[in-house]
């Protein structure tokens, strides 16, 4: 089987890093963000709380994808993204 061992090894580093970050991110959501009560109003406050928590989750997701993006570009593409020159 003609595997590209270098690519698999680099992707393994990327996947394991992203997996670890993802678990930490979900941990922050479950342990810190989840129990937060920003509004005590039982009706509308519930939706406000949900919206704020969704925004925090969105920011964490974007940060996660940004780190993923940087890793792939550093490991596989040397120059700026406009050039996308192979290593």
């Amino acid at each position, binding site marked *: 089987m003609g595997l*590209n061992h270098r690519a698999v090894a680099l992707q393994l580093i*990327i996947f394991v890093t992203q997996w670890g970050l*993802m678990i930490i991110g*979900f941990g922050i959501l479950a342990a810190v963000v989840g129990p937060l009560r920003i509004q005590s109003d039982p009706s509308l406050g519930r939706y406000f709380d949900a919206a704020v*928590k969704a925004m925090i989750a969105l920011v964490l997701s974007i940060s996660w994808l940004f780190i993923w993006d940087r890793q792939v570009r550093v490991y596989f593409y040397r120059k700026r*993204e406009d050039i996308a020159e192979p*290593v």
Partner: protein
Amino acid sequence: MLPSGWEVTTAVLLAIISFPVSLVLTRFFMQVNARRGIFGIDVHKLSKPRIPEMCGAAIPVTLILLSSIYVLIGGGNSIMMLAFSLVVGSAAVVGAVDDRLKMRGIYKPLLTLLCGLPIVALGLLFPNQVYNPTLQVPIFGSFHLPVIYPLSIPVAISVTSNTTNMLDPLNGTMAGGVSIISAALLIGVLITAPAPSAVFLYACLLFSALGFFYFNRYPSRAFAGNVGQLSVGAALGALAILSRTEIASIVAMFPNIQNSFFFLSKIKRFTEHRALTAKPTKLLDDGRLASSSDPKAPLTLVRTLLVGRPAKESEIVSTIFALFLVSAALALITMILIG
């Protein structure tokens, strides 16, 4: 009432039938579609062979058929099976329409949003029988999402179906990748919480994908088409929600996520591969594939794996399967950590 171990064994044994069913149906679609002139060109071969398209329809047909039989013999949660079948069926219809009419790129994500609605509707009608809005997180416990969870279901189905659709550029990558993902999640479900319905659906997806893979593997004799790709992706998304394997499913789909994210971040719009002016790879005179030197070309997973090292199509397919094995192993660890 039958003991749980026996129920799980019955579920797996029935699901194994989906392999020959999918195999026969794929053969059937190959013959019918070839007669009707439904072909795709295998652009990564020097000879540019014409391959029967839309044969992936065998997978959703097998999944819906076997789910119906499972409910009829009294084996599973009928509401859950109905939700699964509606999601898979509607995604297959969207894919078939796209295969025939060649819709603009934006319509597929929009229409597949609607495919998640059966789970939301049935979940509201039958609370706690379809989905559970408490997300289980590895190590850190769980958190309740009564508002966000149902709202995110259509998005989840749209994302999984379209990301699966995008990672089928080479022979057998979609069917092989989905087989690896569903095998890992099936093992995870069997180890952690072997609910018969979840075991049955994951096993069904595994064996029906393998049945299609037999004809789709390198060198392909059948192409899945959007009908197969979207429905299989929707099946993965639906199963993640119905069997409470959301986070493990995200991990298992890491190769798909990377491919779609880098495609969208470069192109900055939803578009079809056929509409791209700058292709991510090029075919060399010796039949090997190489990374494109066009700066406008998207940084797809295949292009990334070809950086600085042209390779045969079969080698790239093997490398992609190795990546799926890595992500599947991480998904399995995730499920064990959740417990």
